C-alpha cells in the first residue's frame, strides 16, 4: 500500500486485505480473525454516511475494541484560501462562505470583521447592520446545531430525531432565505455591512419562527433526553476532559461540555454581542450525551438573542452599509424582475444623472477598494468552536493571504483520543459528538 496521509497505521505488507460493504459484522470479523489473527485494520469512509461528508477513519481493532484510530482528511480540499487571494475583498465572503457550509455566516462575519479591522472602520458599521449580522449568525447557529443533533440521532438509528430536526431547520432556513435570498452559501455579510436590508415583515417572521421552534425543540427533547437507548448509546461515550480539550485546542460545545464556559461572544464581543442578554451553557459531563444537551441549550440561548434582534430591528430602521462611498456597495435593494436584488435609486443616479458616480461605481465593482498593509486576527464563536480568521493585506484590492482556523479542523484531532479503547460502534457516536463539517476541515 502507498504511504498514507496520517502516517502508517500498519507497515506490515503481509496483512491481508478485506473489502466489506454490508453483511453481518460478526461473520466478517470471524472470517478476518481466522485469516489474520486478532489484530485488524478497518477503513471507514471516505464515502460513509456517518462520517459527515468525506472523512476517512482508519481503525485498528481487536475484536470489538478500537486500539488505534486515525483520521484522514483532505478529500474536500478546494483551495478556497488560495482562490481568495485572487478576488477582491467584496468577493471574499462569496468564497469563504463555502468552507463550513453549515455555518456559512460565521466565515463571512469573521472575514468581514477582519477586513474592517484592517481598514479601521470597525466602529463605523451601522447599528442595524450589526443587528442583522447577529440575527443571521444566531439563525445559522440554530440551523447548524439542528443538523448536528439530527444527524447524530440518525447515526444511532433514530430517524425520527433526524426528520424532526431537519423540519425545524427548514423553518430557520426559510427565514434565512427571506433575509439573504439564499438558504446556504449566502455571501450576505459584506465588508462594511450586509448585502441588503431585511425584508418587510421580518419581525412577524421571527415571532412565528420562535413559536414553531419552541414546539420542535420540545419534541426533540422528548425524543432524546430520557430515551433509554439514546442514553445508553451516548452517556459516558467519547469522553474528553478539560485538560485534554485545552491541550488539543478544542473549543465550542466540546470545551463547554467539559466545564469551561469559554465563548468568544462573551470574552471578545464583536457585532455588539456585549449588549445582548444571553447565557453561555456549560456542563461537566464531557461525553457525547452532554454535548448533545449543550447544543440544545445553545439553541434556546440563540432564540433568546433572536427575540432581542427582532425588537431592535423594529426600533431601528437605519442604514445597513457603512457611509463611506469608497467602500460601500448599494445595500438598500429591491427585487428586480429577473429575481436579482437591485437598487433602483442607485441605477437611476449612475445611469441618468452623474457620470462620475458611474465611473466610481464601475471602479469600485471591477477593481475593488484598497486595504492598507498589515495583518489581523479575528475570531468569532462558530457553532463548532472558535473560528479564527487571519487576514494579511498587501495594500492592494485583494487579500495577500486569508487563512481560516476552522474549529472542525482542529477538533477532529481529538478523534483518536475519543475512540481508542472504546467499541467500534461508538466511533460513529464520537464523530457525531465532535460534529465536524468536512467542508470546513478541508477548505
Amino acid at each position, binding site marked *: 500500500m502507498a504511504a498514507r496521509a496520517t502516517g502508517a497505521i500498519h507497515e506490515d505488507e503481509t496483512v491481508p486485505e478485506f473489502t466489506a460493504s454490508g453483511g453481518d459484522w460478526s461473520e466478517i470479523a470471524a472470517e478476518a480473525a481466522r485469516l489474520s489473527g486478532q489484530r485488524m485494520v478497518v477503513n471507514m469512509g471516505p464515502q460513509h454516511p456517518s462520517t459527515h461528508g468525506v472523512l476517512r477513519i482508519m481503525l485498528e481493532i481487536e475484536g470489538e475494541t478500537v486500539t488505534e484510530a486515525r483520521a484522514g482528511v483532505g478529500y474536500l480540499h478546494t483551495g478556497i484560501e488560495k482562490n481568495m487571494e485572487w478576488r477582491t475583498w467584496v468577493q471574499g465572503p462569496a468564497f469563504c462562505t463555502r468552507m463550513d457550509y453549515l455555518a456559512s455566516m460565521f466565515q463571512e462575519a469573521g472575514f468581514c470583521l477582519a477586513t474592517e479591522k484592517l481598514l479601521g472602520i470597525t466602529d463605523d458599521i451601522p447599528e442595524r447592520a450589526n443587528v442583522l449580522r447577529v440575527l443571521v449568525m444566531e439563525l445559522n447557529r440554530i440551523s447548524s446545531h439542528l443538523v448536528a443533533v439530527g444527524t447524530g440521532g440518525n447515526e444511532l438509528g433514530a430517524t425520527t430525531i433526524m426528520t424532526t430536526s431537519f423540519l425545524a431547520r427548514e423553518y430557520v432556513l426559510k427565514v434565512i432565505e427571506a433575509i439573504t435570498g439564499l438558504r446556504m452559501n449566502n455571501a450576505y455579510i459584506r465588508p462594511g455591512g450586509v448585502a441588503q436590508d431585511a425584508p418587510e415583515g421580518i419581525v412577524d417572521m421571527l415571532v412565528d419562527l420562535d413559536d414553531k421552534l419552541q414546539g420542535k425543540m420540545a419534541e426533540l427533547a422528548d425524543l432524546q433526553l430520557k430515551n433509554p437507548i439514546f442514553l445508553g448509546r451516548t452517556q459516558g461515550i467519547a469522553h474528553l476532559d478539560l485538560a485534554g480539550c485545552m491541550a488539543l485546542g478544542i473549543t465550542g460545545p466540546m470545551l463547554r461540555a467539559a466545564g469551561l464556559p469559554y465563548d468568544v461572544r462573551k470574552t471578545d464581543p464583536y457585532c455588539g454581542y456585549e449588549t445582548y442578554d444571553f447565557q453561555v451553557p456549560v456542563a461537566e459531563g464531557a461525553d457525547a450525551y452532554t454535548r448533545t444537551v449543550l447544543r440544545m441549550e445553545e439553541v434556546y440561548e440563540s432564540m433568546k438573542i433572536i427575540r432581542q434582534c427582532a425588537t431592535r430591528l423594529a426600533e431601528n430602521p437605519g442604514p445597513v452599509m457603512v457611509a463611506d462611498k469608497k467602500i460601500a456597495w448599494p445595500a438598500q435593494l429591491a427585487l428586480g424582475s429577473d429575481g436579482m436584488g437591485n437598487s433602483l435609486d442607485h441605477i437611476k443616479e449612475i445611469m441618468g444623472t452623474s457620470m462620475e458616480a458611474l465611473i466610481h461605481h464601475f471602479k469600485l465593482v471591477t477593481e475593488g477598494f484598497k486595504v492598507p498593509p498589515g495583518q489581523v486576527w479575528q475570531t468569532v464563536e462558530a457553532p463548532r468552536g472558535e473560528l479564527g480568521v487571519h487576514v494579511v493585506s498587501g495594500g492592494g484590492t485583494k487579500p495577500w493571504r486569508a487563512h481560516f*482556523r476552522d474549529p472542525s479542523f482542529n477538533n477532529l484531532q481529538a478523534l483518536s483520543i475519543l475512540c481508542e479503547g472504546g467499541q467500534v460502534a461508538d466511533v460513529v457516536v464520537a464523530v457525531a459528538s465532535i460534529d465536524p463539517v468536512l467542508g470546513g476541515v478541508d477548505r
Partner: protein
Amino acid sequence: MTTRDESVARPPTTLLRVREGMFSGSGDTSGYGGFEQTFAMPGPTERPYGEWFDGVVDVLRELLGDDADSAIEAVIVDRGELTLVIHRDFIETVCRHLRDDQDLRFELSLGVSGVHYPADAGRELHAVYHLRSVTHNRRIRLEVAVADADPHIPTTTAVYPANNWHERETYDFFGIIFDDHPSLARIEMPDDWKGHPQRKDYPLGGVPVEYKGATIPSPDTRRQY
C-alpha cells in the same frame, strides 16, 4: 536542529512587493508605466507598546534571560494586536514560557499558518502562531521567518499538541519543515502531490470561461491593481 545564519537575523520589516506601473497583468495603457511603489508590512514598534503588552514582553524577556535579545527579533503592535517576531531556534522555549508562566498563561493555541513573502529576501516564509490566554483574556501572535532555501522550524507540538495538524497543513501548503514533528505528512493535498500550493509562485490555474458569447479570462490572468 538548525544553525543560525545572518540572513535570517535581519531586522524584520517585511517587504511585501514593489509595484511598477498602475496595474499588472494585461498591458498598462495608463501612461504611468514608470511609476514605482513599495509596499511593506508595519515595522517594529518602540516602547511603550500600550495596554498589557509591555508587561507581557517584560515577563517573557526576564524568563528568557540572556537569550532575550536573540530570541525576540522584534515587537510589532499594529491595529491593537501584539506580534512577537521570534527567532526559530527559540520558538519552542518561547511557547513553553508563554504557556507555563502564571503571568503569561497562554494555555490555548489556536493553530499555526503560513504566509509567503517572496520579495522579502532571506525571510520568505513566515509561520504565524496565534495563542490565547483564557486566564487573562489576552491574545498574542508569534511570527517566525525563515529563508526559502532553509525552511526549517522546530516543532511546537510538544508544548501545544493542538498544533499537530496545523503544522502539517503549513508544511503541506508552504513547504515549511517543522523539525521533530511526530508525523509531518501532507494533510490536505494528496501524498504524492508536487509543490506547495499556497506559495505565491504556485499558479492558481483556471481556464477562460465563455458566457453568452463573451470570454472571461481566468482569475490569475486578469488585470491586477
